[in-house]
């Protein structure tokens, strides 16, 4: 099994009387791009702030690189790069000076500044004051700053938020290249399923502060393709028959639904229906899009 980079248990954060994050158990293996997905206000930023030691959890524990964040915060943070919400920068300074102010604190070699500038392709803009940068450039500078310390773990909170399509593409390609080229583990949050779908290898879905799904992106996709719908007369009788035979069927709008079912089982189901003289009008596979799954999981709240 792969080494676990981030592991939280029962992570919770309360503001006033409301839990913004409730009992979140994150599990992020090394080398993955973990897409942290959830509608606005779901608790993504709050979770990320706790992972970076910026906010103290009300309850629960955080382990990063197998170390307790509470006890070894600085040791952990040495190996983490981050970009939280909107980019932070010192507008009156040039891109290079911005990075230099951070580099000193990290004790990184001076040459690292040129390296990260070239990774985010800001080398030619390095001498301009950052306040004149576009949002996309500021965002890239933020990523450059996150990369300065050669992190093993990169935490990016909605890095494509507010960017135009070409800016989004650029950041996405950058993120996708990291684990391959630098062996970095990435946690990237977004409220857009399409974003996560395009870059993540693992997905965690959070809604109203609770994790409602956490697995590989393939598992999420698989969930979206294997729904068999059967149309028949007297659906309720047919449904009871299938249940009595031990099939995991559901009755929905007068149709039988079987999800996650193998070819072998579906043939048995049909045979049983026919034997009991239920007319089978239609057997069809209904493909739910990831979007449907997302909406279903989040209870219809906040789609694209």
């Amino acid at each position, binding site marked *: 099994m792969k080494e676990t980079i981030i592991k939280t248990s029962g992570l919770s954060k309360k503001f006033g009387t409301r839990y913004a994050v409730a009992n979140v158990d994150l599990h992020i293996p090394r080398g993955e791009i973990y897409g942290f997905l959830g509608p606005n206000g779901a608790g993504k930023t709050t979770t990320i*702030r706790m992972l970076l030691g*910026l906010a103290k959890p009300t309850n629960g524990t955080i382990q990063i690189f197998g170390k307790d964040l509470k006890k070894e915060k*600085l040791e952990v943070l040495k190996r983490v790069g981050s970009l939280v919400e909107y980019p932070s*920068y010192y*507008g009156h*300074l040039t891109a290079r000076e911005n990075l230099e102010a951070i580099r000193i604190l990290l004790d990184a070699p001076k040459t690292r500044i040129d390296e990260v500038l070239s990774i985010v392709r800001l080398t030619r803009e390095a001498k301009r004051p950052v306040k004149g940068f576009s949002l996309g450039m500021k965002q890239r500078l933020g990523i450059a700053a996150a990369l300065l310390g050669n992190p093993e773990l990169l935490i990016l909170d909605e890095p494509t938020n507010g960017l135009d399509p070409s800016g989004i593409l650029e950041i996405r390609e950058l993120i996708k290249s990291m684990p391959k080229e630098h062996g970095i583990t990435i946690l990237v949050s977004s409220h857009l399923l399409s974003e996560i779908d395009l870059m993540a290898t693992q997905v965690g879905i959070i809604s109203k502060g609770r994790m409602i799904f956490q697995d590989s992106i393939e598992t999420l996709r698989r969930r979206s393709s294997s729904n068999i719908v059967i149309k028949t007369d007297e659906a309720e009788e047919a449904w009871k028959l299938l249940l009595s035979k031990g099939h995991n069927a559901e009755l929905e709008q007068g149709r039988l639904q079987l999800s996650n079912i193998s070819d072998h089982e579906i043939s048995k189901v049909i045979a049983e229906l026919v034997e009991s003289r239920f007319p089978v009008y239609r057997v069809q596979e209904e493909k739910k899009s990831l979007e449907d799954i997302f909406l279903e999981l989040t209870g219809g709240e906040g789609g694209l």
Partner: protein
Amino acid sequence: MLKILASDLIKMKRKIIWLLIFLGPFGVAALEAVNFGLRYEYLTKEYEKDLWGGLINEAGFLATPALMLGLTLIASMIASIEHQTNAWKQLLALPVSKLRIFTGKMLLASLLLLISSTLLLIFVLILGLVLKFGSDFPLLGLAKMAYYPYLASMTFIAVQIWLSISMKNQAIPLTVGILGTILSLISFRFPDWLPWKWPLLENSWGDPAYSALAGLAFGIVIYFLGAVDFTRKDVN
């Protein structure tokens, strides 16, 4: 700690804060130049026995409100650099302890005001020489004029740094600082234990060193409280 100071100094590049640090003491010396220029006859008669002492006295009088106002602005500017784009979250996610970050800001403000105080000493010295008060200037007296109020106002440096860092809206710390400046101007008849009186260096023992010491000691206490508060609070 030096790394933090170096990083903070990079952030101060091309900021008008440097102008302020120069302009404060320069303004005090310039006003005194005007003061002595206009009332040369009167003032040289008044301070006949000790011309240098007279100049130090007059300059010290102006220096106190300038210092109180200056420290308020400097603390606010230092904090604003981080507040502006909410850089705290970036800064505090680095492997540097919050205590050190807070201490760095306090040190930076103290250092900048120390530069200001030293400039004041130099400018007043030059003014005295230009006014031909003699080359036997009292360096100790000049140093006391420049550094005692500085030490006595350490309490306010700590208060303003704490306030300015704790809240994004700088209207509150600025108001507190400006009211404090006015309060210190009229605090002659207040009891000795009132911190606003300390920068005036007036106390019933008649030794300004006590005021300086009180301000420094209490400043360290407030710095400590501020640091504890800062490390405990979540970063916005």
